[in-house]
């Protein structure tokens, strides 16, 4: 393909503008997080080491990472078999499941929290006050995004025919789901997982109002006393999510290449 000179210049400018839009705030974060507090000259990594040395921040980070893992696990276990089953066996429920999964998107988080507070007093009573109990709420919270990702992956393959072919060859339903359908929607499951991680690492409203100390809550609290540490944590979590998403892109590309000549 040949592109005109103007096109190439415009494209380079566009990329440059996009890069600047994306990276300048991150660089500013890096710059600020390495400043010595109180306008003193010089650079320091104190704010970054603070993430590990400060008890509160460290446990908040651990809690958020564990929450991310638990939420993804819960979402995958709940959503993937349900969606496959509905598609294969009860397609008339498809609309209902879609509606239920998209519902959390249409209700403001604040409203959900107010409603859910009473439930959480029971959760607290039964399971204790660990921030990991937020998993229940987060699985619901990530449903709309995960649903979309998995749904489009399912739409890209002929699930019904593949399942029937596998069954005629002797596969039971469990084998059909684990060995035939899941491997073919793996890209969609992965992107659902990564979107969920990104959401959980950035979620503030639920954890703050239910009084759990997760990373965003701790960051907001520390921001007032030690802004640099808060910025370092923000940059770290954003970098983590960016790395995950980049990984997803490359993983997806490799799978695509494998499937082509």
């Amino acid at each position, binding site marked *: 393909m040949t592109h005109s000179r103007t096109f190439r210049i415009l494209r380079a400018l566009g990329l440059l503008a996009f890069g600047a839009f994306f990276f300048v705030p991150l660089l500013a974060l890096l710059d600020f997080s390495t400043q010595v507090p109180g306008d003193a000259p010089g650079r320091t990594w104190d704010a970054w080491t603070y993430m590990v040395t400060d008890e509160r921040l460290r446990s908040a980070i651990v809690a958020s990472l564990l929450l991310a893992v638990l939420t993804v696990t819960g979402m995958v276990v709940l959503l993937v078999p349900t969606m496959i089953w509905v598609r294969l066996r009860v397609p008339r429920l498809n609309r209902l499941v879609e509606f239920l999964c998209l519902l959390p998107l249409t209700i403001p988080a604040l409203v959900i929290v107010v409603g859910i507070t009473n439930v959480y007093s029971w959760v607290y009573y039964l399971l204790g006050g660990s921030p990991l109990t937020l998993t229940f709420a987060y699985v619901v919270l990530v449903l709309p995004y995960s649903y979309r990702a998995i749904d489009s992956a399912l739409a890209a*393959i*002929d699930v019904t025919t593949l399942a029937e072919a*596998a069954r*005629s*060859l*002797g596969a*039971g339903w469990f084998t059909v789901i684990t060995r*035939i359908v899941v491997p073919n929607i*793996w890209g969609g499951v992965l992107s659902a997982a990564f979107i969920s991680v990104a959401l959980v690492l950035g979620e503030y409203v639920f954890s703050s109002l239910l009084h759990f100390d997760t990373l965003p809550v701790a960051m907001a609290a520390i921001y007032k006393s030690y802004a640099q540490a808060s910025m370092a944590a923000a940059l770290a979590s954003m970098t983590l999510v960016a790395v995950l998403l980049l990984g997803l892109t490359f993983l997806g590309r490799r799978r695509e290449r494998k*499937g082509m000549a």
Partner: protein
Amino acid sequence: MTAAHEGRQGLEVELDGLTRVYGSLRALDDFSLRVQPGELVALLGPSGCGKTTALRILAGLDQQTSGSVRVGGRDLSGVPANKRDMGMVFQAYSLFPHLTVLDNVAFGLKLRGRSRSARTERAREMLELVGLHEHGDRYAAQLSGGQQQRVALARALAIEPAVLLLDEPLSALDAKVRVQLRDEIRRVQLEVGTTTLFVTHDQEEALAVADRVGVMNAGRMEQLAAPIELYNSPATPFVASFVGLSNRLPAEVADGEASVLGQRVPVLDGSVTGAGLALVRPESISLEPSAEGHGTVVAIGFLGPVSRVQFTVPGQPEGAEPLLAQLASPDATALRPGDRVDVRVDPAPVLVVAG
């Protein structure tokens, strides 16, 4: 039954009184079929006639409302699809996209707990059978449609199925590949000797590959017979008009003979007596140029070795379709539109239906 099936170890298939009701629709209506061991039966009919429903019930992918399914004498009611040992090839491409061709073919054997070496050997054998042994490492996306369906055939046969089920396996393919693959399916089927049910809406396909063809209409079997019998002696008007082309010529039946265009022609069982319409194949009609002939040529369609000539005769209803005669091309091309011709009907038995 032809000699080709003797000594084969295929199983007998008995579908007995199958009815399948979807809401207010009777997809199958007291449908019965008995397939001999090693036989290839094609189910032929227009879309919605119930042929695919019958196949899916046999496969266990659909449930009959009533009736029974027996394979090799064993009642399969209540046996799930994955325990029925049916090799199935679908109309839609159904290779597992994440597995190589070889792994696709070996999939059924893996589920049956065969060792890696045993299933690889069997899978290679099957790929050899369909002429794709060099494509074992490829993925479905790297194959043409025809190749994918061959792999699907190899995959279905790898498990040594009780019955091979082909659900319009050629419908998604180009015309040329379709003919090639249809002959190949027949070759492979004769080689392995598996009892086979082949569902299609393409009459040429059905007539070319099957030992017997079952013509279906509205959930019922209209006629089950060898291709040549089906073609020459249709049992019902539906079969006569669905299989091949038929002219409808006014006829008068008496004493087992019909008078068609002034000629005496024997009639088939099931014909009416008295006045009716004789269903006459285009190739049973010949046209001779003659100045006194009462036929008039309307148009000539060249089809290669043969040509189809449209003509009219006096006494046809106003606005009726012209009649069709199939002639050898050299004879047909000697004719011109407007020519007068003598119309002769071969004395082959015809079905006469109520007019």
